[in-house]
Every structure is written in C-alpha cells, then in structure tokens.
C-alpha cells in the first residue's frame, strides 16, 4: 500500500468539457481520471438574478493526484475549465486517507 499522500480532485463541468479538464490536469502532472455523468441543480431565481444560465447536463471527473501537485492541478482546471469558461467547472479536492491500486 502506498504511503504517499493523495488527494481526490472532483470537477463538475458542463457536458462536453471533461476532456478539457483531463488535459488541464495532465499538463499539471495528473494521470488518468474517471468520468461520471450527472445532472446539476440550480436555483432558478438565482439564475435570473445573476443572469447566469446553468446548463443542467454535467460531467463529473474524479482524479486521484499526489498531494504535492494538487494545487497545480486545481489551478490548471480553473484556468482551462473554470466558472469563467464555457465549461463552467467547479473543482475541489478531498483528502484521501488511504489509496490502493495506484501502482508506482
């Protein structure tokens, strides 16, 4: 079992932008990821107030990264697929207590 510390990066983006997320993450040193499909919910009144239209169909990208590059990965995702982009991505990380199957 690896002793290296890992973080689990989640990124929720509009459908069609998962590849953008993965490209950004790989540029920062990440390996592969796992893609889930989901549907976002948004407060309709808030959408109207802020003049933001939230596309409901989402892709959720999960990427396990070494803790040492977590910030670089998140920054890369923010720049390429963040809220100010067409992907309107939200990325965050969770601490990983244990990880298996990651190899070297």
């Amino acid at each position: 079992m690896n002793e290296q510390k890992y973080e689990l990066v989640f990124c929720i983006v509009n459908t069609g932008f998962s590849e953008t997320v993965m490209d950004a993450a790989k540029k920062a040193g990440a390996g592969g990821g796992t893609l889930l499909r989901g549907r976002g919910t948004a407060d309709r009144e808030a959408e109207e107030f802020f003049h933001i239209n939230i596309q409901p169909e989402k892709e959720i990208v999960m990427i396990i990264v070494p803790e040492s590059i977590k910030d670089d990965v998140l920054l890369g995702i923010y720049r390429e697929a963040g809220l100010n982009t067409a992907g309107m991505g939200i990325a965050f990380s969770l601490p990983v207590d244990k990880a298996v199957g990651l190899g070297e």
Partner: protein
Amino acid sequence: MPNENEKIRHVAPMKLKLLITVVPRGKAGFYIDFIQSFDVNMQASVPAHGTASSEVMQYLGLTDPDKTAIFSIVREDRLDALADALEQKFRSIRDGDGVAVAVPLTSMAGTALFGFLSNDRRALKEETANE
C-alpha cells in the same frame, strides 16, 4: 418515557469512511459483493468511463474504458483489512484491476442511519442527564 428535562445523548463509537472503488464494469458485481463482506451495509454503483492513459494502449485495445464507480460506506476499523484485500484482488483477478480511495466522513444525519451504516447495533447509546 423521558420527560422534557431529560436529554438523550447519542455516542458514535467509531468513524466512517467513504470508499470509492473504480473497477472494470464486468467485475462490478464481484467487487460489490466482496466489499459487502466487510460489514458494509450501504453501497451505490454508478456507470463510469475511464480516461485513456495512453493513446497507444487504447489503440492496442489494452484499456477498457467502461468502468463502474462503487461508493461504499466503510467502518474505520474495517478499512485496513478491506484495502489490503482489495489490493490483492486488483493484482490477482484477471481483467479485474482497479483503484480505491477512502475519504473521511465528518458528519451524518441521524443515529439510526449511523447504526445501519456502521453495522453496529450498539451505535445508539441512550443516556439520560438531568439538567
């Protein structure tokens, strides 16, 4: 029946973790059953898609992108044994390689839910205290 001056305290005996296991879709059933044998009462599986780690590997058909992500609630005292067992299965089962990570759960709504998820009938401990 406790009166309004009595309080009931609920004590959580152990912590829970969220285990996320990503395996080839064809092996999902096996891994769900396997993880359940470690006192896991709650799991959810979601179809997933692996991102190709190498264009060459994908071209050669050496990677199967169809995956299943299994979300399991695991007791902290069972996690080490489960992780060791999963690692052994990932190595030994043909076309059954996967990854698994555990993240901490910090809060939960309801003691009955906690008892169910931790598979511990003693999870709910009633104490009465006078004000």
